[in-house]
């Protein structure tokens, strides 16, 4: 089976600035593919090229079987796109938005009604379908936008930061909808900067400064880029102790969060007991120390740190 998305050396320059730099990857049919990166890393530019909205300046991509540079119109007919900037017509009702996008993709008459009815049910929009879209809460609006993007049953759907600014509960239910789409065979290409969300993806590509620096399953990424054991520590006088901890043999990474910190260690060279004694000796007492698993945050931090060191 041919992949849903094939990207070869895709490059986009704006003047002297290279937004997307020689990126290659493939996404299989029915896969949920996550595209991670900081703001300005080139995520949206990649998506826009894959949707036929922006012409690549180098390399190319085939989406839904068509070349994005040569046949953007055929690409557009086969995909759904939910842009980062909020792009529904906020002054129109939910139903009017759905009707417009359905007919823009060529549905009409009874077919249009069936599809909208189906989508309203799947996205649980029945209660709000006659409301003005702009008056709905953010999470609900995102669902209307997703519904508009997949009404025409595209093989592939591109979601550019679909959950930006949405509360955690709504984000979780939104991801259920995304998983539901994928289970019906739709390929989902989604960008995000919420690392916890990215765990839902089958595979993840990580962009740093326009380059695709890693591509693997979430587990694979953690194994490769955040190896070792992660220990969560809490206690008084933590800051000065953490500063001197950096650079100690066996310590791979130290990052603060909230009142505590996570310390990633190489278990071969540094045991949890040794670390605990060392911290207590520096006044972090009483010390709380817990085992925890590496997260994609650790991966992301490690990769960005490496890229920055590489530039220096």
């Amino acid at each position, binding site marked *: 089976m041919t992949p849903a998305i094939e990207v070869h050396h895709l490059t986009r320059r704006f003047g002297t600035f290279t937004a997307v730099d020689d990126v290659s990857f493939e996404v299989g049919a029915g896969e949920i593919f996550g595209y991670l990166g900081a703001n300005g890393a080139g995520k949206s530019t990649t998506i826009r090229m894959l949707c036929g*909205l922006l012409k690549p300046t180098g390399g190319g991509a085939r989406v839904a079987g068509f070349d994005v540079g040569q046949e953007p119109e055929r690409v557009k007919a086969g995909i759904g*796109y939910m842009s980062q900037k909020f792009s529904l017509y906020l002054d*129109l009702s939910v139903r*009017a938005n759905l009707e417009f996008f359905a*007919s*823009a993709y060529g549905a009409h008459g009874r077919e249009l009604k069936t599809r909208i009815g189906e989508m309203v049910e799947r996205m649980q929009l029945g209660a709000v379908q006659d409301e003005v879209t702009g008056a709905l809460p953010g999470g609900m609006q995102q669902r209307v936008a997703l519904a508009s993007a997949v009404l025409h049953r595209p093989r592939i759907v591109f979601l550019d930061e679909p959950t930006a600014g949405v509360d955690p509960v709504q984000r979780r239910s939104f991801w259920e909808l995304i998983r539901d789409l994928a289970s019906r065979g739709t390929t989902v290409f989604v960008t995000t900067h919420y690392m916890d969300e990215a765990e839902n993806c089958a595979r993840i590509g990580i962009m740093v400064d326009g380059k695709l620096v890693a591509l693997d399953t979430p587990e694979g990424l953690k194994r490769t880029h955040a190896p070792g054991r992660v220990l969560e520590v809490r206690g008084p006088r933590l800051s000065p102790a953490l500063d001197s901890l950096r650079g100690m043999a066996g310590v791979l990474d130290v990052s603060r969060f909230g009142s505590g910190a996570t310390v990633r260690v190489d278990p071969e060279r540094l045991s949890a007991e040794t670390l605990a004694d060392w911290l207590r000796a520096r006044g972090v007492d009483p010390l709380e120390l817990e085992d925890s698993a590496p997260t994609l945050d650790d991966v992301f931090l490690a990769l960005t740190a490496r890229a920055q060191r590489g530039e220096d």
Partner: protein
Amino acid sequence: MAATRVNRRVGRILAMAGKEVLHIRRDIRTLYLALAMPVLMLVLFGFGISFDVDHLELVVVDQDRTDLSRELVRQVTASQEFVVVQDGTSPDEALGALRRGAATGVFLINKGFAEDVKRGGAQVQLLVDGSDGNTATQALAKAQALVEMAGRNLGGPVRVTAPPLEARVRTLFNPDARSAMFLVPGLAAYLLAIVAVLITALTVAREWERGSMEQLFATPVGRLEIVVGKLLPYLGIGLLQVLLVLTVGAWVFDVPVRGSLLALGLGSFLFLVGMLGQGLLISVVTRNQVVATQVATITSVLPSMLLSGFIFPIENLPPPLKLISTLIPARYFVATLRGVLLRGNGLDVLWPQLVALALFAALVLAVATRRFQRRLD
């Protein structure tokens, strides 16, 4: 196959147009404003602004002081179009009054006027303050007509064979020289230009600003379909406005429709398409509502008022402005409207105006659609 492709295209255009109608319905006050403004402005302009000249202050310098000369003055001032504010002064004093603005004209009857009338050829002088060109022109025309009439009356009893005073002015098509007759066509063009350019520029720029244009570009709706679908409802509103303005013009100001309705309809359609295209071009270039408003005001509202012949006759414009006015579609539309409404013209006379309107519409739409790339780069 070809038929279904056309069907799909029409379907997408109708989807765009339908959505636009919903936007208009959501913001119904704008529509009311768009329809009420022309009527209101027409009434205000029609009643408030009058270029009609009446009660002109005249200084009479009668150096002849005969019955005949006094009779001439009486007849010229009888209709109240001229009012004597000063009498019997010297020519120098009279000119002083003119210079001070105390009078708009000096009526000068030279010594020997009565003798000249009897001999069959007399002259009187009218000195008019030309600083207000419109008033001066009208005063001159009126004075000539009055003096000619008076001359015929005076000449009667003294058996003057030839007309004693040479002046032949007749105003055709708008014999009363009423402002409304002359204003309605210009006002129609002006109002249509405002609404068409401004509203289009705003609504299209809004889609850029809100990001919905990007969403639109991701759908299979083609750029021509976006353009046509988006402009269609505003074309409808524009044509409705034309009807409204003409109806009010006919009812309130007795402005007739004497000529070809086909030329009227065609002219309105072509003018509107050109204006909508101009609004589209502005929004495509600016992609921002605030800038679009300013550009639309400068490029459409002002020229349509100043360079279209609406207020200032094109013949009176200085040559550079006259040249620029040839690029202003409102000029051709005003000419078309005056032709149809006042002169009773048809396509046979007005076709050059319609061709000019069509050229502008085609050009501006072509450029706008070209610039309207469905890519974001």
